[in-house]
């Protein structure tokens, strides 16, 4: 089924059409392919434009604040810390965060060990807890070098790990997803949980930065 579209987008649509999508005039071949695919799938009833918009809204709401809240809780509550390290997804659920059935492993940074996460094969990332992954995490440069020369990559992020500490890299090759529990800053005693969460950065939760 094809529709004859005019260049003028102010014409009336039939009452049973989906709501008019926000216009995108991107011109790259790939953008056009992507938009064309989406429009054909909508025309075939696979999903609706409203459902796409709902997903966009959900996406916009995702950030690293869920992950930060979990770590802040773990810092102040030893039982929660133990639960978080034993089963990250269950601990996320306990705070009302839905990891959609994806297992989560939380790795604790200590005086002896500094952990850092990567997905060398693609760019797996716990988006429900950390929001969208940064572009650098997806780059071949990060994926290629952090497994082989992590200390040098960390240095590029301004992070120096002493030779007396183990750097432990985690390559997210299968079904697990990872989040780092950074070391709690020394001068944070007595801070509220909210204030502690404010200290926790996305890069700290990936492991390329300390706090």
């Amino acid at each position, binding site marked *: 089924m094809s529709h004859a579209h005019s260049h003028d987008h102010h014409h009336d649509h039939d009452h049973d059409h989906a709501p008019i999508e926000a216009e995108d005039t991107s011109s790259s071949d790939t953008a056009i392919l992507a938009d064309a695919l989406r429009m054909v799938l909508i025309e075939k009833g696979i999903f609706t434009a409203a459902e796409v918009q709902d997903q966009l809204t959900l996406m916009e709401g995702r950030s690293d604040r869920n992950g930060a809240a979990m770590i802040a809780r773990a810092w102040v509550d030893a039982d929660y810390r133990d639960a978080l390290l034993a089963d990250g997804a269950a601990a996320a659920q306990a705070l009302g965060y839905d990891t959609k059935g994806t297992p989560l492993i939380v790795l604790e940074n200590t005086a002896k060990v500094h952990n850092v996460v990567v997905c*060398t094969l693609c760019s797996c990332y716990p988006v429900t807890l950390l929001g969208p992954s940064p572009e650098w995490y997806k780059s071949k440069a990060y994926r290629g070098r952090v497994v*082989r020369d992590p200390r040098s990559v960390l240095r590029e992020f301004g992070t120096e790990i002493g*030779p007396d500490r183990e750097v*432990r890299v985690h390559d997210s090759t299968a079904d697990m997803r990872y989040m780092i529990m950074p070391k709690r800053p020394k001068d944070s005693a007595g801070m509220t949980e909210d204030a502690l969460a404010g200290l926790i950065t996305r890069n700290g939760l990936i492991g390329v930065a300390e706090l």
Partner: protein
Amino acid sequence: MQAIFGPGDRVQVMDLEAEQGLTGHMRAPVYCRGKTGEIERFCGAFGNPETLAYGGDGTPAQPLYRVRFKQADVWPGYAGAANDCIEIEVYQHWLKAG
């Protein structure tokens, strides 16, 4: 499918592509193939990505482990600290006792 390894077991990653002519979608990166490490934990059983990638249902579920390697055992001339490690998830059918 039965999980045959436990935490602490020494395991070697086989290269199923080179040894058995496996083709298609694989989640064992080349850098770990042939390397020996130890089981860090059993993660549970999950659908086999090698068949899920081609429309299969991924059954039988494959036991999945996290394997810890010393970086010095993975990379010739590793430039970091002697204790540095790397941990990756490897499916049971890629592993043999090391």
